[in-house]
């Protein structure tokens, strides 16, 4: 019951297996069209291309993409709300927006065609991890301005699966529905699913005995260690889905059943990896920032959008037979990186370190302070039943183990503070890992 049934080939997945040359010729055709479209309808892009002394006709091969200027997140803020739209409002059928934790949100738009492309890539995402008509998909991504909820919803429906549009939050109800409706898959953030795992015993739900077999997890960076923990504790397979609103939402890339990194749906999203310092393209296999170009987006074409996500691209053959290149799971975002006493640290390193210690859950938060010119890091970790005993020594040992694990991974000594369970805020969207209280 828990095992994934044989994947079976879903016709919607056909483009995943395109021969290399055909894929490239499709990409080039779409790239030329999208550059032309952006040039004709988006003032900012036209100005930048003109400034670079280029015209859309200068894109003659895929390699020419590297001549084009980058687009960055602040471009979306600076042109808030509709400045990057390439379609008139009468053709736009949907708007989404980021939560806007800092300043103005960013707004993204979709034409009917864009929604179809989005549904298509989500369908292919679900199919890639073995889901099909007959599956019951509990969609616990937030519905609303956030792209996660509706994005997954449309794709799941198009696949012919049964969607439970439960949205995020209310863990008790999530568990009740999961059990009573016989959900076979769930979509949410990995940290929220961990929260569900934690709550299940209290509500008398045994996850391992449910028909649930797959989790489509995304919207925040997570680690391989977290995947192993989720799989061991819930008995499901955890798949990594990647996406960002600026490009389309979830469904830019998705893991197949081999679970060896998300395949990018390259027929719609053209990936590059650039060096963080020189901004020059890097060959496959080298780590850098992922840059994406939307090859079909009508309402809001994104040319060479800098995602801030750090990964590598691999063209190594995947056992599943897909010809689409894979990215390594996004464990790090250049945005999340913090510098402590001159050392670059990513939250994912802390997460990996914490998960190395038996019995802890990666509910953690990193607090940065500065005292007398010296940076201090405190990692707050929630106490779990597994590590708690009635003696002080045992818990102090756990604290020391966590400290050592962090030090051996980052080379930095950080203060570890154990905190009450459930006190670190659970996000139903993206987990907030770093709180920087340093006054710079």
């Amino acid at each position, binding site marked *: 019951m828990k095992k994934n049934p044989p994947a079976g080939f879903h016709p919607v997945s056909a483009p995943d297996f395109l021969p290399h040359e055909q894929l490239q010729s499709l990409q080039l055709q779409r790239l030329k069209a999208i550059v032309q479209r952006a040039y004709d309808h988006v003032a900012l892009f036209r100005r930048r291309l003109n400034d670079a002394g280029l015209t859309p006709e200068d894109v003659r091969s895929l390699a020419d993409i590297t001549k084009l200027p980058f687009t960055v997140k602040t471009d979306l803020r600076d042109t808030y709300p509709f400045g990057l739209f390439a379609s008139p409002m009468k053709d736009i059928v949907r708007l989404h927006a980021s939560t806007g934790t800092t300043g103005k949100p960013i707004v993204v738009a979709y034409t009917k065609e864009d929604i179809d492309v989005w549904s298509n890539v989500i369908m292919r995402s679900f199919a890639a991890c073995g889901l099909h008509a007959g599956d019951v998909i509990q969609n616990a991504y937030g519905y609303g301005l956030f792209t996660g909820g509706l994005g997954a919803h449309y794709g799941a429906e198009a696949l012919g699966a049964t969607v439970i549009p439960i949205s995020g939050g209310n863990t008790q109800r999530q568990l009740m529905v999961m059990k009573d409706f016989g959900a076979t898959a769930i979509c949410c953030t990995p940290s929220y699913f961990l929260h569900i795992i934690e709550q299940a015993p209290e509500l008398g739900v045994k996850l391992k005995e449910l028909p649930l077999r797959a989790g489509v997890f995304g919207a925040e960076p997570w680690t391989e260690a977290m995947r192993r923990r989720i799989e061991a504790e819930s008995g499901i397979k955890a798949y990594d889905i990647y996406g960002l609103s600026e490009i389309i939402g979830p469904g830019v890339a998705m893991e197949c059943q081999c679970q060896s990194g998300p395949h990018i749906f390259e027929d719609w999203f053209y990936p590059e990896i650039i060096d963080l310092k020189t901004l020059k393209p890097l060959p496959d296999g080298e780590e850098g920032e992922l840059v994406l170009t939307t090859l079909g987006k009508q309402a809001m074409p994104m040319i060479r959008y800098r995602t801030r996500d750090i990964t590598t691209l691999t063209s190594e053959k995947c056992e599943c037979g897909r010809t689409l290149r894979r990215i390594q799971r996004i464990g790090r975002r250049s945005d999340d990186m913090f510098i402590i006493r001159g050392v670059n640290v990513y939250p994912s390193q802390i997460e990996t370190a914490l998960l190395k210690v038996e019995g802890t859950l990666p509910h953690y938060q990193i607090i940065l302070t500065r005292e007398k010119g010296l940076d201090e890091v405190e990692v707050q970790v929630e106490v*779990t*039943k597994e590590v708690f005993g*009635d*003696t002080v020594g045992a818990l102090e040992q756990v604290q020391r183990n966590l400290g050592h694990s962090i030090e051996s991974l980052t080379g930095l000594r950080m203060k570890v503070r154990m905190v009450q369970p459930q006190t670190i805020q659970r996000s139903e969207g993206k987990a907030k890992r770093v709180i920087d209280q340093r006054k710079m």
Partner: protein
Amino acid sequence: MKLKQLSLFLENRPGALSRPMRLLAKAGVNILTLSIADANQFGILRLILRDWEKAKKLLEKNGFVVKVTDMVAVEVPDQPGGLAKILDVVEKAGLNVEFMYAFTEKRENKGILVFRFDDPDRAIKILQQRKVNVVASVELLKQEAA
């Protein structure tokens, strides 16, 4: 023979102790005795209560991490050397005491101490062999006559 003890993780900050206390008070759960172990950044509250199962459920429902451990209650004559005699037995038998604390109530002229041993079953056996009065939990937990 063994006595159930609940232990709770507490953060080291103002108000950390009052929250569980208030919860128990509201539910009408009486605490027989307690002790607090404090470390640098956290504390452990140890409780012995009559209705420990109810208390455990209540505390867990409110987000506390609760652990149940077996304790051994021992009667100690309230006179100089009373405890020393018992500790002699403990020491000679090689029993390891993690910690201990006292009951607030006294029975006749005897105090009651609760011990946390590594191996409570073995401890009970040895203590009884050496004629130390191990107090049965039923006796300690019985309701006082109204």
